[in-house]
């Protein structure tokens, strides 16, 4: 087994009385594609936000490689090698694709105010390097032809790809993808799965949240399942799919009716889970 790159130990986060994440421990290993699934509101995105420092855990530790992430300011994470995308796309929408990706490369540069105003050779060299890296990232995601367009004018699927390009350009060791397939059609989803594999093949560890079981079961090496903020299963895709607790979380059982009634959406993942099972049968 390869070594652990991200390690969550007993992580808990409360919002007032609500326990959003409840004593979750899980790890992500170097070079794998790791998935986190669960019904809506299970706390998946919250885990990402904890890892990226948007929220601070009430208890527990998060380690990235050898380093504890407790108390690391969120803007430092990109430099340490953690990049992410967002569930509801967050692009710099009135800037061009090129500029979006250049900002993604912020942590790869060092120049400041003086460099910008005096434009001495080191500054120019850095700008050239950054823009070269930006081109590469755009091309990797197949967006280099549109580099000059404004992000807000892109179709939805390309916006998602631009977000990934922006994350990739920082040359992360760990890439967090928050529902990358949301809103995509089947063709786009297959292309996305291919892209995620390609990213993994460059040596980047991928940690993703996804609702689409076809995508999750198709590409993940290991899958963890979250329900009501607690981890209820963790293992190979096939194991997780058979897990009684997981099936109960998604489909509910007679004995749990009481709880189910409070859950807003349950129908969507149900369908997706069946779809996933069908795919794996092939």
């Amino acid at each position, binding site marked *: 087994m390869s070594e652990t790159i991200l390690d969550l130990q007993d992580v808990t986060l409360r919002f007032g009385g609500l326990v959003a994440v409840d004593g979750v421990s899980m790890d992500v290993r170097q070079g794998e594609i790791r998935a986190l699934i669960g019904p809506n509101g299970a706390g998946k995105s919250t885990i990402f936000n904890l890892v990226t420092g948007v929220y601070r855990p009430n208890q527990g530790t998060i380690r990235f490689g050898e380093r504890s992430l407790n108390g690391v300011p969120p803007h430092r994470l990109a430099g340490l090698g953690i990049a992410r995308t*967002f569930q509801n796309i967050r692009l710099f929408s009135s800037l061009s694709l090129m500029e979006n990706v250049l900002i993604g490369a912020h942590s790869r540069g060092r120049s400041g105010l003086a460099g910008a105003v005096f434009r001495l050779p080191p500054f120019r060299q850095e700008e050239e390097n950054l823009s070269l890296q930006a081109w590469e990232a755009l091309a990797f995601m197949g967006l280099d032809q549109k580099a000059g367009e404004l992000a807000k004018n892109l179709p939805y699927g390309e916006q998602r790809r631009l977000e990934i390009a922006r994350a990739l350009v920082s040359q992360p060791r760990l890439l967090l993808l928050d529902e990358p397939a949301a809103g995509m059609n089947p063709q786009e989803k297959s292309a996305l799965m291919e892209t995620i594999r390609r990213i993994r093949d460059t040596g980047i560890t991928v940690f993703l949240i996804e609702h689409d079981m076809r995508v999750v079961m198709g590409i993940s090496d290991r899958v963890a399942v979250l329900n009501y903020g607690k981890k209820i299963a963790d293992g190979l895709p096939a194991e997780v799919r058979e897990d009684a607790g997981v099936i109960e979380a998604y489909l509910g059982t007679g004995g749990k009716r009481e709880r189910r009634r409070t859950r807003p959406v349950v129908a969507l993942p149900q369908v997706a889970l069946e779809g996933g099972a069908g795919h794996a049968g092939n």
Partner: protein
Amino acid sequence: MAQFLQQMVNGLALGSIYALIALGYTMVYGIIALINFAYGEIYMFGAFTGLFLVLTWKANLYLAIFGAMAFTTVLGLVVERVAYRPLRRSRNAGRLSALISAIGASIFLSTLMVLLHGPATTGFPTLFQNRNFVLGGASISLYQILIIGVSALLMVGLDLFVRYTKTGRAMRALSQDADAAALMGVNTDLMIAITFAIGSALAGAAGVLAGIYFNAVQPYMGLMAGLKAFAAAVLGGIGSIPGAVVGGLLIGLAEIMGVAAKLSDWKDAFAFAILILVLLVKPSGLLGRSIIKKV
């Protein structure tokens, strides 16, 4: 102690005026997140309307207040219609465009009054004999009773309106989620217009009260009063009706206390110094909802 009580009374009277204007700011902000910079000018027009009614038609106090409220209601609606509604309709107009438009309306209105009346300050004719009552060592004038009384009446009325009428409920729904409210059949434009109307009426009443209290009416009186009232609304937590009242009263009190402490030269800075200090400790204002950052 008596001295302190006296300042409390004075501060309460001044604060009531700020609170009335602050209500207009906070209601409009709560619903469409717009800083209506023209409110100070609507308050000024209220004062002038009252003055005009008293001078020309020999109106009594009540007529002056009601007349001013009626006129500023119309004025508020016109400003909303001309300067804000077209911007709301335009998809390209950001919040800053609306702000600049509001500032344009403010400059327009104050200049208009300079043209109509001239820049000079006019005293307010005596409507009734002022008298002082002594209350636990502090004296309170009839004017002060009038201001505090009318303000309290209007605020309670507003609170009841927003809480218990169908229109009030629609307004609250709108401030929570404009799209959802529209889907539920709330007539957004109408509700926004009503909000402007109510806010403007309150500012009009505040204008007459201030004219009587300070015995001074002039075309630029709206600027500083408006800024301080806006500061009051933010201090209390913008969008919150009780917050506007609390903020208004606090700023009125602070100013009076400052004057009592022989710092009257600095009094215009108090409102803002308090505001900044409060915001640093509680960024959403005293009674404001804190916004949870959503990712």
